[in-house]
């Protein structure tokens, strides 16, 4: 799936420019430690965390995009950092479970 397809297929809103690339997995966790230890490059990360260190972690392991769930407000410095890393941030009011189902139905498999 292309990152540019996420908005329509997953009912989520881009918070910054869409840096389009291919995504072929998903990783669900609310800990940057988990991402460092186990997330696979090219995966979409689903999390409730909005702190800018999520971008630092996603950039380190080359994730394709981040989806922030449950309507969390994302600080502007996190969005700016995502642009610096050319990483697209999405937000949705849905919870992690609903997003996981949509990802699965779109053909995305676990990224670990």
């Amino acid at each position, binding site marked *: 799936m292309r990152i540019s397809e996420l908005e329509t297929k997953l009912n989520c809103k881009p918070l910054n420019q869409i840096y389009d690339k291919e995504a072929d997995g998903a990783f669900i966790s609310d800990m940057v430690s988990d991402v460092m230890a186990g997330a696979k490059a090219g995966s979409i990360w689903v999390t409730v965390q909005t702190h800018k260190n999520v971008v630092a972690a996603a950039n380190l392991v*080359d994730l394709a995009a981040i989806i922030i769930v449950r309507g969390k407000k994302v600080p502007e410095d996190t969005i700016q950092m995502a642009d610096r890393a050319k990483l697209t941030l999405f937000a949705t009011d849905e919870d992690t479970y609903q997003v996981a189902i949509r990802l699965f139905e779109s053909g995305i498999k676990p990224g670990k």
Partner: protein
Amino acid sequence: MLRDRCIHSWAMTDVKYGFIVTEKCYHCNQVRTYFTFEETPPKEEYKEAEHYWNYEGSAQSIKFSMRCGKCGKVVTFEELMGLMQCMACDEGCYINIISQICEGQNIWVYAGLAYKSGQEVDLPAEKMDVLTTYFTSRLRTPGKKILVLPGSLRRSPESCRGEVLRDVGMVSLTPET
């Protein structure tokens, strides 16, 4: 001999979760940082030699080693407390200067912050090379690289606003109301 010639293929192993704890002695103002595998970070004040250590803060993080899948060599990172990405807070800081140069070439700089006996030290060069090789090997974007540099390249560790990869407040994470 085999290990000497091996072009290593590193994988993260022996991953353990714990807490990075920062303490301060209010008698001499010395600050120290250490890693603990206790279930919750110790917060009680205690005396050790001439110091009276008080809890300043903590964050969840991981300890890990790297193992070469070809030769079996294991490199431990007991002194590593975290990787930090520069936030460009100080124009004269070497980490900032190098980051700005490298990012134009799609090389992303992370400072390896290491502590021994509570005090900040540099990671040995071999260990920085292992981290650089390992994290670069995990990338998929063509031309992108990771470069791990010593934390001592920061001009002022005390005022540095770099973003350390650790989980702050996870044990008290609650839904927003």
